């Protein structure tokens, strides 16, 4: 039995959290549900505990990147095979987890991202957000020469190799787009699967208009500079060696090796 950790990053989500945890525990009783309370000022921590989730209670706000990474670190330490990131605001639905997991189980990819835009979906994001996502998507296309339709999606599953890599190296406060880039450049295979998402169910988004602009800019700079960075050695060389022949021919893009990784 594969051990699955569901990571729910939550910042002031007391309104949504118990429903989210309840849904997850009902659908996936075998999985561990881990709420990362990112220094919330409301009752998020207690709601999580009462809901029967594991709780990693950060002493102060680290931002979504630091929060998710805490979860990944936990997964790494506790030997989970699969980590699922599931937002605490009720945007993601437990029904949509199965296709992501099924895709990962095929074994020809390391990360599966739930995308709202692979095909037409019912999800309607605000125009500004769609524009931002579109721009990021274009940037990814240019740098990676691959289509990533929804780089901002926080609905993802990681396999063990990706967990180990990201636990050590995960971008900061608006990490989703950048992490796709980092992962791909380090030889991980990222694929997208179509999911439906709901608008957030209550509470407030942590992203305001000006912050969004600032983040956008910051992410572009981070990605731009990241694209010139030499990649580090993928920490899962044994895993690579094991399915060397089959996997990356199939995946269509061989893991990139740098001179440093050979040394």
């Amino acid at each position: 039995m594969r051990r699955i950790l569901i990571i729910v990053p939550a910042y002031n989500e007391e309104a949504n959290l118990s429903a989210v945890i309840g849904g997850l525990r009902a659908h996936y009783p075998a999985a561990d549900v881990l709420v990362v309370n990112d220094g919330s000022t409301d009752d998020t921590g207690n709601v999580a505990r009462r809901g029967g989730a594991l709780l990693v209670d950060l002493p102060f706000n680290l931002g979504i990147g630091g929060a998710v990474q805490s979860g990944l670190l936990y997964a790494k330490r506790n030997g989970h095979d699969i980590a699922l990131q599931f937002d605490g605001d009720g945007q993601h639905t437990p029904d949509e987890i199965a296709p992501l997991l099924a895709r990962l189980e095929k074994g020809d990819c390391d990360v599966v991202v739930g995308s709202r835009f692979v095909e037409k979906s019912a999800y309607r994001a605000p125009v500004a957000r769609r524009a931002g996502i579109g721009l990021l998507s274009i940037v990814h296309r240019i740098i990676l020469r691959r289509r990533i339709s929804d780089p901002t999606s926080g609905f993802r599953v990681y396999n063990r190799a990706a967990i180990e890599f990201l636990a050590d190296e995960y971008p900061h406060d608006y990490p989703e787009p950048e992490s796709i880039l980092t992962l791909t450049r380090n030889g991980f295979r990222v694929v997208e699967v179509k999911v439906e998402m709901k608008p957030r169910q209550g509470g407030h988004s942590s992203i305001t208009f000006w912050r969004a602009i600032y983040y956008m800019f910051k992410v572009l700079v981070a990605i731009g500079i990241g694209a010139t960075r030499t990649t580090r050695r993928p920490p899962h060389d044994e895993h690579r060696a094991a399915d060397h022949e089959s996997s990356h021919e199939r995946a269509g893009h061989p893991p990139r090796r740098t001179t440093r990784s050979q040394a």
Partner: protein
Amino acid sequence: MLAILLVVQLVRKRRLREDYALLWLAGGLVLLVFSLKKNLLDQLATLVGIAYAPSLLLLGAILLGFLLSMHFSVALSRLAEQNKRLAQELAILRLSVEELRNETGDDAR
């Protein structure tokens, strides 16, 4: 100039790490040398082709300030990273402690 040196010397007493104290001391010393030997600055200025000598001093000061703040940014980034890691480790440890307590039935807080 002596005042600068004095201040640095005082701050050095445990309030400042030695590496930084040394840096400020060196800066103070350079200034001291220039103020004691007035024509040295002029000679240096003509050597690098600057007509107005005090602007060389200013240039040096700005350059030093720039490099220093750059250095602090780097140091700060590193500290922030370490700080984040500490917070994560702490939170995960807290969870482990809680789990252990539940297992042993010890509910002391």
